[in-house]
């Protein structure tokens, strides 16, 4: 009928849909650009001695980040030991005991609030909770901060996966006369085990890259880490300090540290997501 108008509509259609494709390509492309650039800049500085040596004093070039890697493992490990059990068991409470209760509603709401609070504010809390009373920066305070970040993530994830466990399994186990706590621990939790573990892993990888709350809790350290009540170096903190330093050599080290951190985070994310097919709820 009206060919010109029809052609115009077709052109607009193609243009706008083309634009959306460009948007998507840009969004996904950024990731690959970042990964590629880090690999390129980091690989040249990566060596075995970088992984196994301590940082050199200011002014000397070379040195490594061994203390930061161990420190990160310690701080994140302790955070996991504190955060994962609390998150998982609270998740058990919400699905297995808290249906419809007001207390469960409050807990869920508190978890949502904690989840939305910026990590720097969680860091402030850990500072007031641990650093101020002890009057010192410490590995422990860093772990407390990271654990507080993990808890709501693990909690919501556990809850999602426990909810997927069919009610018939619960009833079947209870009908056998098995005590409730055994049903939960040995039947329900294992059924949802994969999802829960994946969530815990993702939470660990998330906090392994956290820097902001550690700046004034774990604080950082250029020597071997001594105990839980002293300042400790972690990978993101060292990366940050190297990046904002004025030294060329430290910048180089920052890229290498970034590569290691990125590989760690990617490895966990890829394993978690491939291991657990799409049914996984996003964090």
């Amino acid at each position, binding site marked *: 009928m009206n060919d010109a108008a029809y052609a115009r509509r077709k052109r607009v259609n193609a243009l*706008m849909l083309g634009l*959306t494709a460009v948007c998507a390509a840009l969004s996904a492309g950024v990731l690959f650009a970042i990964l590629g650039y880090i690999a390129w800049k980091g690989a040249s500085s990566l060596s075995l001695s970088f992984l196994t040596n301590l940082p050199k004093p200011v002014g000397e070039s070379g040195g490594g980040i061994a203390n930061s890697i161990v420190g990160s493992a310690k701080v994140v490990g302790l955070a996991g030991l504190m955060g994962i059990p609390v998150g998982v068991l609270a998740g058990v409470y919400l699905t297995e*005991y808290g249906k419809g209760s007001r207390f469960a509603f409050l807990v869920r709401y508190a978890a949502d609030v904690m989840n939305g609070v910026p990590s720097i504010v969680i860091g402030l809390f850990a500072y007031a909770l641990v650093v101020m009373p002890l009057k010192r920066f410490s590995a422990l305070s860093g772990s407390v901060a990271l654990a507080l970040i993990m808890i709501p993530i693990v909690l919501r994830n556990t809850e999602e996966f426990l909810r997927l466990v069919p009610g018939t399994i619960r009833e079947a186990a209870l009908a056998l006369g098995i005590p409730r706590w055994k049903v939960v621990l040995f039947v329900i939790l294992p059924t949802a085990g994969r999802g829960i573990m994946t969530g815990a892993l993702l939470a660990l990888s998330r906090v392994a890259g956290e*820097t902001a709350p550690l700046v004034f809790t774990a604080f950082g350290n250029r020597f071997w880490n001594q105990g839980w009540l002293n300042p400790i170096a972690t990978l993101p903190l060292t990366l940050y300090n190297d990046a*904002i330093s004025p030294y060329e050599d430290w910048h180089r080290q920052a890229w290498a540290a970034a590569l290691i951190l990125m590989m760690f985070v990617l490895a966990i994310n890829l394993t978690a997501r491939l291991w657990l097919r799409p049914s996984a709820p996003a964090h």
Partner: protein
Amino acid sequence: MSAAAAPARTSPVERGGIPVAGPRERAGDRLFRLTVTGFAGVILLAAFALAWQLTRGSLQTWKAFGFSFLTRTVWDPVSNDFGALPFLYGTVVSSLIALLIAVPLGVGSAVFLAELAPRRVSDAVSFAVELLAAVPSVILGLMGIFVLVPAVRACEPFLSKWLGFLPLFRGAPYGIGLLSAGLILALMILPYITSIAREVLLTVPRPLKEGMYALGATRWEMVRSVSLPYARSGIVGAAFLALGRALGETMAVTMVIGNTPQISASLFNPAYSMASVIANELAEAAGDKHLSALIAIGLVLFGVTIVVNGAARLLIYKTEGRK
């Protein structure tokens, strides 16, 4: 309503739970129930303790300055004179820049992923975008310092040549400043907007779309007049959620914003954000009053993110729950 009180007429599972505590609850069961309840209580306790600690820690500041703390522009730790306005300004402006860039880009991507791309492409691209969210902020900051800032510095003269009639784009091309902070924040919030907008767009009922096609609409006309309006509140919710993230984002911003507490019209100038000042100054706070002022900024940040996230949840729920 306690599930225990309900008569066991329907299946416990249909009622949404198995009876909690009957008269015959075993000792072991009771112990276990109390234990998990205790762990759940830890979270509640932590949230209250967080609010309480922030309030208590900042009391001194509120007493000294009252609400004018939020409107004063001085930040002088030496003479204990504090005002948070430059930080509020830096946080809000950099977050708004981020939203201006990330919302169109994210919604565009989401439309492509939800309406156009074949399932496999859509899944792969969504996966890549979600991985982008997993990149630690400090690594984006590193990219910011050594890649983004030089690039922005190179572009700023052109921006001021063409858009210099706006005060936003005037001044010396430092590279570091509000513009760089906004750009890097845009990158950080893009995954949230894309993945939520995609999910919301996928909930648009098929009959509505088919009705539009039956009227002879092109695919874009269908997207514009059916999908996007249907998903509007969800998309706005995604933007709010992203805003909540952007407001509290610390490391990447700290590394590129310039850390200068000033308010200036130009986006080229260095500024400072609330989260950044806490990260930079808390470890070596000069004294009680300085510490208290920093905690006060933390309290403001806490309050703002609660409000923003609450609004986001409400909006997203409104769309996704409509199905």
